[in-house]
């Protein structure tokens, strides 16, 4: 059973009020109001250019926004800090870089410069983090030689350290084969039930959204509809946004 979605669910949540983002005189996001709840998988849907990535960047504190983004505990009090984990979309880096998974993760885990080597303690922490997403065998592979699915699992492992309050997944399975997608989703669903955090995912895979999401936000510069998938999927706004697009298509 998916937990019921109520505005006050008794869990801590991230509260967005009147969030707007303007860049170069153009409004990319307008007056976004929503809650992202702990223990739920919230999925952000909408067409390309609807502001999904902008909303994510606002949550991560990477773009300036007006309005408020607050992290509230179960009694509605502010929790001062919001730790975000972030799995970016597709990485566009030089595939020939001689950087191993271990190098990459150590650069985030440790202060010791990676070119002097990776310490034993750091390596143990990396193994542990990778094991959590069934990717321990990737530790010494060059980053540029990973498949799409493998790269996503490495990024997921990284995003879980330090333990986030909000895990943000930006189209994590685009360009990943069917098998990899399934594996990734299973991992995310397991994390949802075992970790104390909220998960926000951008997805174009509507079939997956219907199956896995607890809460859906339909975005086009502002929120058109939000609620449980069964509700959002039968709204006129949803039909307008995705008219002609068969289920599951990008």
């Amino acid at each position: 059973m998916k937990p019921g979605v109520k505005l006050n669910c008794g869990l801590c949540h991230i509260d967005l009020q009147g969030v707007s983002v303007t860049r170069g005189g153009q409004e990319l996001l307008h007056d976004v109001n929503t809650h992202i709840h702990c223990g739920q998988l919230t999925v952000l849907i909408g067409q390309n250019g609807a502001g999904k990535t902008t909303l994510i960047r606002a949550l991560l504190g990477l773009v300036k926004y007006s309005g408020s983004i607050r992290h509230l505990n179960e009694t509605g009090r502010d929790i001062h800090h919001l730790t975000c984990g972030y799995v970016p979309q597709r990485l566009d880096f030089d595939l020939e870089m001689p950087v191993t998974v271990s190098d990459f993760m150590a650069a985030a885990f440790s202060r010791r410069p990676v070119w002097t080597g990776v310490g034993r303690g750091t390596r143990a922490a990396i193994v542990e983090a990778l094991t959590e997403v069934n990717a321990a065998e990737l530790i010494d592979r060059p980053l540029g030689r990973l498949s799409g699915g493998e790269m996503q699992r490495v990024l997921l492992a990284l995003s879980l350290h330090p333990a986030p309050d909000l895990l943000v997944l930006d189209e994590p399975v685009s360009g990943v084969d069917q098998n990899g997608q399934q594996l990734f989703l299973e991992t995310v669903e397991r994390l949802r039930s075992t970790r104390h955090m909220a998960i926000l995912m951008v997805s174009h895979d509507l079939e997956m959204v219907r199956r896995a999401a607890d809460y859906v936000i339909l975005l086009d510069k502002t929120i058109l509809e939000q609620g449980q998938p069964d509700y959002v999927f039968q709204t006129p706004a949803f039909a307008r946004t995705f008219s002609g697009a068969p289920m599951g298509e990008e």
Partner: protein
Amino acid sequence: METIYQWLGAIPLDAMRFDFMKRALLAVLLLTPLLGLLGTMAVNQQMAFFSDALGHSALTGIGLGIVLGVSNDLVSMLVFGVIWALLISLIKHTGGASADTVISVFSSTSVALGLLILASGGGFAKYSSLLVGDVLAVTEQDLLWLLLALLGGTALWMLMYNGLLLTSVNAPLARSRGVRVRLYEAAFVVLVAVAVMLSIRWVGVMLINALLILPAAAGRNLARSTRQHTLWSVGIAMACGVTGLLAAYSLNTSAGAAIVLCAAVCYAASLLVRRIRK
């Protein structure tokens, strides 16, 4: 300084009879490890063209120094190089044009401006050594600067490397983890600018970039990890530096050219090794 000269004089090589060769050797030993370190990131971030443009801007630096009446051309080159480097990276981030177009515009502008000033009155000939470099030009003051640059550069490299590595994989990810991406990138281009300007008079405008890029590019073909990449890059840079300098002495030719050719041979060899491994 005298003691160091005496030690170097004890090396049983004909070249070590001369103080200018001792200074050149010291300069090579101080500069090449720094360029080897910086080169790894320059190659990974595909900045070869950027550092090339930076080398060219040395001409403008000297030219402006003359116009402004700065007596020490090292100072005017350093100041101008640092400003130029920051300006290019700023415009690269904000401008609409693609990076290589922006860099090309900057590169040709600085060369033209430098030539305009230095060639006024038909006197460019006395600056032509800037283009090909001259090992005789290494002074004890240069050595001190190089030592400071090596120490300061390595220290900064210890602090910044992890952040730069994350940035080169994905900048938003690095930022979301608290890396101040812009600051790190700025510090990196300033470091490259300083290393380039400190060595341009004896390596030469035309060759300085190769010294930064080639060892790191060769190292990349041999390495599987960041640590290996750094070790290979620094090792190749230092080995080529010394070999090239000594070869240039016996052949009585440009040291910069000999060092770079050495590095080019290493690069070709590294390509071969990579082929065989695959």
